[in-house]
């Protein structure tokens, strides 16, 4: 787990440059060096994060199955090898946290890891114990990011997380929701609480966050994590029956997964997406979406219109 870097003007500028400045400055077609992974800064610190992370919902919940656990470790190995950093989980995800811990042990604790987890329990008083159990499952000294999962008992949990941040027990705090739920409440919390991150659902077909949440996040300096980029695979299954459009090559996309991910991470308000997978080749394919040319606003509109018609 990395140390929190001090935010300086130079560092912030460097982070923006590393992001290709593409999404933020909106050139006609964003460009990034093909061999460098695209990163975006966490607004509250300037720390650069690769725009593609790794989710663990369903895919890493494999119980005690050693063969499947080794498969997950291979996914994590491919993720880190491709330049990935953020892995996201939750106590709601069954054995996923322990499987991540197992994988991290297998990989000798990659220093690049950005550990993101959540607190998910209706009892406010039991939140700290759950967080500690999660920390032990991962085997990390502290989490980089802790989020209140689906706004469950969010007020006391957020107080706990902010106190932990003040005590240096976690680096960033945030809240999560999914599939468009409780966006009004999310907005209110974003306006009133000192959040570092917010996690929401966004993809070519679920675009509600474009109207208010993403602009608000930019205004408030809140980093945005995108969950369910593939709608748990439904979106991929919907589009992969069709041939890749000709414009895919213009943004260096070799697959529908890359098209979907580039659409998401090229939004100026998005910091990173966290697709989940059980396959190392899919991780490499996903991570490749963090490289090469990014779509500009015109291309993004074209992409969305194309997919909506399919």
């Amino acid at each position, binding site marked *: 787990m990395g140390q929190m870097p001090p935010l300086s003007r130079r560092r912030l500028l460097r982070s923006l440059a590393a992001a290709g400045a593409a999404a933020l400055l909106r050139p006609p077609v964003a460009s990034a060096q093909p061999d460098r992974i695209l990163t975006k800064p966490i607004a509250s610190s300037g720390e650069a994060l690769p725009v593609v992370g790794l989710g663990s919902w*369903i*895919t890493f*919940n*494999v*119980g*005690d*199955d050693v063969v*499947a656990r080794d498969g997950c470790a291979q996914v994590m190995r491919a993720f880190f090898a491709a330049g990935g950093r953020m892995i996201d989980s939750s*106590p*709601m*995800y*069954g*054995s996923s946290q322990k499987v991540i811990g197992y994988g991290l042990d297998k990989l000798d604790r990659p220093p690049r890891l950005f550990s993101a987890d959540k607190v998910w329990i209706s009892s406010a008083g039991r939140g700290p114990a759950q967080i500690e159990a999660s920390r032990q499952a991962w085997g990390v000294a502290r989490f980089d990011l802790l989020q209140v999962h689906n706004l469950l008992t969010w007020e006391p949990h957020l107080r706990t997380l902010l106190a932990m941040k003040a005590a240096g027990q976690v680096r960033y705090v945030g809240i999560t929701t999914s*599939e*468009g*739920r*409780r966006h009004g409440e999310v907005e209110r919390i974003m306006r009133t609480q000192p959040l570092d991150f917010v996690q929401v659902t966004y993809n070519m077909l679920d675009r509600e966050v474009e109207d208010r949440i993403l602009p608000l996040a930019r205004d408030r300096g809140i980093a945005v994590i995108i969950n369910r980029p593939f709608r*748990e695979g439904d979106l991929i299954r919907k589009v992969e029956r069709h041939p890749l459009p000709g414009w895919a090559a213009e943004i260096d996309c070799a697959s529908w997964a890359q098209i979907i991910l580039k659409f998401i991470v090229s939004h100026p308000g998005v910091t990173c997406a966290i697709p989940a997978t*059980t396959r190392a080749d899919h991780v490499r394919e996903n991570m490749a979406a963090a490289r090469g040319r990014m779509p500009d606003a015109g291309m993004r509109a074209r992409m969305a219109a194309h997919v909506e018609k399919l």
Partner: protein
Amino acid sequence: MSEWWTYSLSDFLLFSPRTYYRLFELYNLAVWPWHILAVTLGLAVVALWLLGRAWHGRLVALILAACWLWVAWVYLLLRYDTINWAASYFALGFAVEVLLLVWTGLIRNRLRLRPVGDVAGASGLYVLIFALSAWPLIGLLVGRPWAQVEVFGVAPDPTVVGTLGVLIAADRPHWVLLVIPLLWCAISGATLWAMQSPDALLLPGAALLALVTAGWKSASRRRQASPDTGRPV
């Protein structure tokens, strides 16, 4: 959860079908040869039923309670709990059913089965035999490997269906004994449905049959108890 209507079944699915059935594969490997004993116990229920001795209900209840206890502890609590945080609650429900079976059938001797010549008796027997013999083949028929078979007395679904067979054939409606098996049919049926398993409708089908026969038995008993119906009591 005020936005409950925005959730779909798949939102509650914590694992992939691959993980779910692989769990059975590893479980079968770990508990073998319990399967032989469990199926033998199931066949013993059939034999006790056909023989029709006065004490058959007590032994049937004891066998079913033993199977439910095994599934609660060895499958739900020790295995399923590793991929589903709700499994400990399911195990608690199964343990309650154990107590209900022991109380109703073993201690109070209220679990008596109809003769197989009776419609309800025959239906119940067919359901039990289906749970014992056909259920393990379903996975094979829909393309799952034999190592992932679900066996009565070992896996929850065939154990619950076999129990429903006994309750369908009971000489009276046992609503209290039906509650937990019916709940399990709803939960497991929904899980299989969310996983798009081809056999997802079998559990709700068995539950529906049990509900209909229990309702029919209740209605029959009310008619027989009523002096105004003109029917023979």
